[in-house]
């Protein structure tokens, strides 16, 4: 692995060496390394690009890393990763994609991650997207996440994109079973002429199912963002979506929330707030000795923490 690849892996997966446990690294359109553990088996798909991950029933406190990096210009790929999580598990999955594009051709990674989470299992899924490189080639990431939660299971997804991705369409579709919970926390910051779109769609089909979608975004320079969410309450359920955006310079953020209560015991809430940094926040931090720029950075860092 060269230095650029090592840095990308550190950015997206906080990895500085080969991790313990299950591991799959994909670089420049090819699977580079794969390692299974006793309870987590990773297999390469035979019919299309991607992997199948099988987590055995009762697997507790294990984690797996599945970073993807692209360091050549002009690579476009579509990858399918399926996660089959058994019953009564408690696992952490660290995914992420880093693109370094110094060339003039576009580099694009489209990943479709599908989760089947068994009864009573708890999954924490961390996804980080990062782009760098000073070429004119665009860096594009379009992650699709499909989530199926069985009875009393929980999936918590943390999705972060702070830097360097020119264009992204992030689609998440979820079907939630009885007593199951989906929590998604998304953080996005866009710069320059970047564009980011988020599209959440959640079907609360199970009795006592719930979801909480939280999006925090910052749009700087001339970047644009679009947040769409659609929560369908089809049973006794609780759904909450929250979109909080800070706009700076000529940035633009649009939020289009939709909540559909299709059952008399469905409770659905949407909150959205978009605006520039409040002047009084800047003044307070400046009155504690920060310059205006330092105050702005502290507010943004806190907001996206």
């Amino acid at each position: 692995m060269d230095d650029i690849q090592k840095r990308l892996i550190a950015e997206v997966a906080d990895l500085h060496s080969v991790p313990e446990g299950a591991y799959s690294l994909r670089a420049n359109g090819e699977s580079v390394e794969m390692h299974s553990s006793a309870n987590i088996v990773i297999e390469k798909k035979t019919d299309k690009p991607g992997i199948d991950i099988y987590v055995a029933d009762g697997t507790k406190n294990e984690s797996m890393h599945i970073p993807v990096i692209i360091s050549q210009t002009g690579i476009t790929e579509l990858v399918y990763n399926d996660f089959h999580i058994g019953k009564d598990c408690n696992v952490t999955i660290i995914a992420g994609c880093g693109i370094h594009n110094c060339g003039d051709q576009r580099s694009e990674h489209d990943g479709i991650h599908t989760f089947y989470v068994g009864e009573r299992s708890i999954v924490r899924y961390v996804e980080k997207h990062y782009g760098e490189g000073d070429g004119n080639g665009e860096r594009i990431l379009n992650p699709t996440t499909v989530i199926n939660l069985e009875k009393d299971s929980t999936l918590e997804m943390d999705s972060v994109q702070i830097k360097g991705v020119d264009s992204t369409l992030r689609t998440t579709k979820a079907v939630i079973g009885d007593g199951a919970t989906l929590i998604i926390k998304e953080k996005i910051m866009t710069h320059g002429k970047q564009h980011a779109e988020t599209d959440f769609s959640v079907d609360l089909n199970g009795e006592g199912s719930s979801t909480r979608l939280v999006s925090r975004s910052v749009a700087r320079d001339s970047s644009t963002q679009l947040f769409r969410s659609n929560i369908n309450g089809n049973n006794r359920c609780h759904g909450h979506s929250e979109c909080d955006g800070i706009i700076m310079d000529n940035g633009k953020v649009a939020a289009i929330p939709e909540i559909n209560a299709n059952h008399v015991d469905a409770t659905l809430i949407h909150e959205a707030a978009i605006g520039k940094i409040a002047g009084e926040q800047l003044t307070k931090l400046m009155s504690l000795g920060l310059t205006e720029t330092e105050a702005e950075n502290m507010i943004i860092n806190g907001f996206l923490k």
Partner: protein
Amino acid sequence: MLELKNISYTVSDNDGSKEILKNISLTLQDDKFYVVTGPNGGGKSTLAKVIAGIITPTEGSIILDGRDITGLSVSERAKSGISFAFQQPVRFKGITVKDLISLAAGNNVSLDEACEYLSRVGLCARDYIDREINASLSGGELKRIEIAMTLARKTKVTLFDEPEAGIDLWSFNNLIKEFEKLHDDIHGMILIISHQERIINIADELILIADGEMKGKGTREEILPEYDCLTMGCRFTAEAK
């Protein structure tokens, strides 16, 4: 020493212009405890904001220890030794109590140190230190955190805008002790905007502001009759005598 020289502040809107502060001149000594009082809407908060640099006066100058600070920004005034506890504390998303106390103290304070400032304002420190300064905190809690920040800053000039608002009476008595302690520790100047009798009682001097003008500066005995005269009418106070 802080000197305000002929401070005026005028705002203009569609209905014409309005003078919020009218030619106020004041000399405030180090190591003194001042209380600014007067009717609501009289210009007290504006005066504090002028000192803190949040509002730039239309006329006049502000001199701190011989240096003209009129043109300095809020940050520069903060660095030159002015603290200001807002009347309405500001909420932030994702910034914790510890973040702001550390910032106020000027270093990465230890947990014990940060907790001490919170305990001094009557908050059970360990419950609060990692809380975000957001809408989950009540007005009274925010107000105490605001005051804790000024305790942590330890500057030579400390301004409080109505610190009693939203704080219950029992806690308030303890807060008064903290104001006195701050005064004893720093030997700096404290200026509190307040209507509260208990705060007025501990002031070295009162400053009476009404209708944007300074109506008086002096001891409690000198100023309070003037205040009553303003708020209740002089005929009433004359008759009461």
